Structure formats: C-alpha cells, structure tokens
C-alpha cells in the first residue's frame, strides 16, 4: 500500500470507483425517467418519494462522483493525448478541486 501513496494512483482509484458506481447507477436512472413514458404523475410520484434526506445525500454523492469522473477523465485524456510535461500532480489536484466545487454548488442548490 505504501508504494501506492501518490497522487496519480489516488486519481486512478477515484476514477475507477466512480466509474463503477456511475455505470451501475445508469440503468436505475434511465428506469426512473422512463416512468414518465406511462404518465407524468408516475415520475412525479417517484420524485416525491426520493425527496428525503437519505436520497439527497445519495444524489449529492452521485453528483460528486460524476464531477470526479469527468475531471479525472480529462486528466487521463490530457496525459494520453497532450505533449508530455511534468504536470500530473497539478492535474490530479485540479481534478479533485473541480469535484469538490461541483459538490459544493450542488449542496448549496439543494
């Protein structure tokens, strides 16, 4: 474990965990929105049901994961496609900052 304690490895781990979580969440997300196909009222009922603290925390988590996966993905693309330079620690830090900022913005909007 000690050998892994550096920004690039943590960035990788966050990217992988958030990716798995988002991939598993997608079918659920699509199913919920698909409710509107039958009636707007069904979607509304679902939204009311999720309008409670536990779900708010879950939604906040998903927004942070989505932002983290986005920023982490841009980090990977930058490393793979842009000319190599010694900036990978900065990239990881910027990605983390972006995820936290998105989380904050969402929490304030809640």
């Amino acid at each position, binding site marked *: 474990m000690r050998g892994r304690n550096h920004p690039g490895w943590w960035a990788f781990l966050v990217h992988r965990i958030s990716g*798995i979580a988002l991939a598993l969440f997608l079918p659920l997300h*699509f199913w919920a929105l698909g409710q509107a196909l039958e009636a707007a009222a069904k979607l509304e009922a679902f939204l009311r049901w999720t*309008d409670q603290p536990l779900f708010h925390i879950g939604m906040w988590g998903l927004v942070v994961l989505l932002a983290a996966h986005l920023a982490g993905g841009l980090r990977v693309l930058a490393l793979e496609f842009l000319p190599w330079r010694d900036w990978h620690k900065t990239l990881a830090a910027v990605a983390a900052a972006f995820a936290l900022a998105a989380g904050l913005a969402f929490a304030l909007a809640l």
Partner: protein
Amino acid sequence: MSPRSQTLLWVAQRASAVVLALCVVVHLATIIYAMRGGISAAEILGRTRGNPGWLAFYSLFVLACAVHAPIGLRTVLREWAAWRGRGCDAAMWLFAALLAWAGMRAVLAVTGALT
C-alpha cells in the same frame, strides 16, 4: 478478441469520453440549476417536452454512455474479478444494449417524442 478489436475498444472509449465530457458539463450545470428549490416532474418535463434540441442532446448523451460504460466495466471485470473470457465480452455487449434501450426509452419519455 483480436488486438485490433481491443485497440478499437480503446479508441471508442476515448472518443466517447470526449463526447461525454461535453455532455456531462451541460448535465451538471442543468442539475445544479434545476435543483434550486427542488425538482418536480412538471418542471423537468416542461423544459424537455417537445424540444428537439434536448432530444438530440440526450440521445447523443445516452448513446455515448452505452459505448463508454461497458468498455470500462469490461476492464474492471477483467482486472478485479478475473473474468476474461468471451462470456465477459458477451455480457458487456448485453449491458451496452440494455443501456442504449433503457436510455433511449427515458429520452423519449422526457422529451415526449412518442406522445
């Protein structure tokens, strides 16, 4: 799967990532904007129903997800679950189909393209 196909999966993963990067920025902004004061079905549908712009946007978004997520999951299953055979590849094609189908169903539902 041949190394060439594996390479094309890698290309598809990166190409869809670029599309998704743009989509997710819009999506995050929309979520945060829409969340203020709570969300309701009427509010969501009011924004999306009968709007060809959103129809095109969400269709692209869903299809990029259907490409991106299964390729990533395939790598995770190979590395963390040691599931490497054809079975894994077949399961990922199925997962891609499921995402595309369920996703497009959701898009049609919220944009009202079917009603």
